[in-house]
């Protein structure tokens, strides 16, 4: 969960459920492993393009992975 931000994500949960390593996900969506780590920790919010890439990789919709909560 990102501090001071209302965008959460279920990336770590979904990735672990499917037994995928951070490195594998990073290579598939063409970003660095650190970016995946930061996304999972909520320190970084992805661009809309990266969010689409991740959603497509898992065969899900963006909303199923990234959750926006109104304050």
């Amino acid at each position: 969960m990102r501090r001071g931000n209302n965008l959460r994500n279920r990336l770590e949960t979904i990735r672990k459920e499917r037994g995928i390593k951070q490195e594998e996900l990073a290579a598939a969506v063409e970003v660095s492993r650190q970016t995946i780590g930061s996304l999972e920790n909520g320190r970084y919010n992805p661009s809309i393009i990266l969010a689409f890439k991740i959603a497509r990789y898992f065969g899900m919709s963006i909303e199923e992975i990234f959750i926006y909560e109104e304050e």
Partner: protein
Amino acid sequence: MKNCKSIVISILGVLLCGIGFYFVKSLTDPQGIMKTLPYILVGIGCGMFGHGVGDLINKKVTAKNPELVKQIEIDQNDERNIMITNMAKAKGFDIMTYVFAALLLAYGLMGASMEVIIPFVIAYLFVQFYAVYIRLRKDREN
């Protein structure tokens, strides 16, 4: 063929460096530009040589390791890395604005020569106006 450019740059670097050293040794009483030109040539020559050889080594290492090339490409295009780099540049620019302004004020108070202060002010204002111009242009484009 792809190494040709790096080899040419390296050779030119060595040549410039050699010419610079030759001038340093041979000119006994240099006048005008010749006082500094040899050292400028040595500096540029060393830079070109370093750049050329570095490029050659880089190509040699990456040619054997396509995975490394892919990783470097990913790291260079990684959106978080780009964001961090841009943020660092922006912070650096903000700091530079205050540091240069303070330095300019200090020079003014020290009564430094106008030949120093005026180009400094022009350069400072150029950078600041350029930042405003880019901001307005990007605002219109995006």
